[in-house]
């Protein structure tokens, strides 16, 4: 097997390579690739430890997740009920709100 590219070596280290066995056999026979893999492994370990320091104490619990879902609100759901409500809005109210927004913000207003 030819020498491994940097990307292939990095994937091998994470056991995400296309052919782990072939890569392993090549590394056993190739000191240059072994040295390159050692450097990548060192960098990966440093990054792993650093990102681990950012880990929050714990994942949100189920109750916290449901509370967050509640805070997001039901009105925003793409549910037919919500759409129906919008359609059933009295036309007068819709027209009023349109007028209000156009009179206060329209750049074409003469004054």
């Amino acid at each position, binding site marked *: 097997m030819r020498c491994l590219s940097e990307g292939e070596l*990095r994937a091998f280290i*994470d056991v995400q390579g296309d052919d782990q066995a072939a890569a392993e056999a090549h590394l056993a026979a190739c000191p240059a690739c072994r040295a390159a893999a050692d450097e990548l492994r060192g960098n990966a370990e440093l990054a792993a430890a650093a990102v681990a*320091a950012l880990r*929050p104490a714990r*994942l949100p619990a189920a109750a916290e997740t449901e509370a967050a879902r509640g805070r997001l609100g039901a009105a*925003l*759901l793409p549910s037919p009920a919500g759409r129906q409500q919008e359609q059933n809005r009295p036309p007068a109210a819709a027209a009023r709100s349109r007028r209000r927004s156009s009179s206060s913000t329209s750049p074409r207003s003469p004054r």
Partner: protein
Amino acid sequence: MVWVDERAERLSGPARKFDDLFLRLYPRLHELCHRVVGDGFEAEDVVQEAFLRLAGAPVLDRPEEEVGAWLRRVCLNLSYNRLRWERRARARLERAGRLEPGDGADPGDGPLGSVLRLEEQVAVRRALWALPERQRSCLLLRHSGYSYAEIAETCQLAVGSVGVLLARAERAFRDAYQPQDDEGAGT
């Protein structure tokens, strides 16, 4: 739990899917954003905003892996935007002399262990910030436990390109992070 079941009964297909996705994906998205922004409340805000965008987006009809990748991408971008905004605001305050130059972390008078942890977190975030965005995301995702396939979908890369991007990201991270490390060791 009863609450969820009652809701599920009166929700239509897409709405139920949305709820379902929220309950399953929220915890890990929250954790990911927390790593970036360093605050639980702000992380919740970011994830909520991502789900708000999902509610009206066509991607909601796609398979779950795609929706998950889309949400991760939006969450990371929103988190980066907040940090960018925060850094600019802090720089303005520093220029106006209303804030001591520094990292903005307030260790308060907690125990020494948590002060050191905060300092380490500040150093890690600073080094991560020095990386190009895609490398930063790739490194963060990998070391938050995501697979190469998940990283590829999130960062919109071929799976075969994840290794090389990650190798570059980790080398750049080492170069940005180590100098501070040496300084600390020297004092």
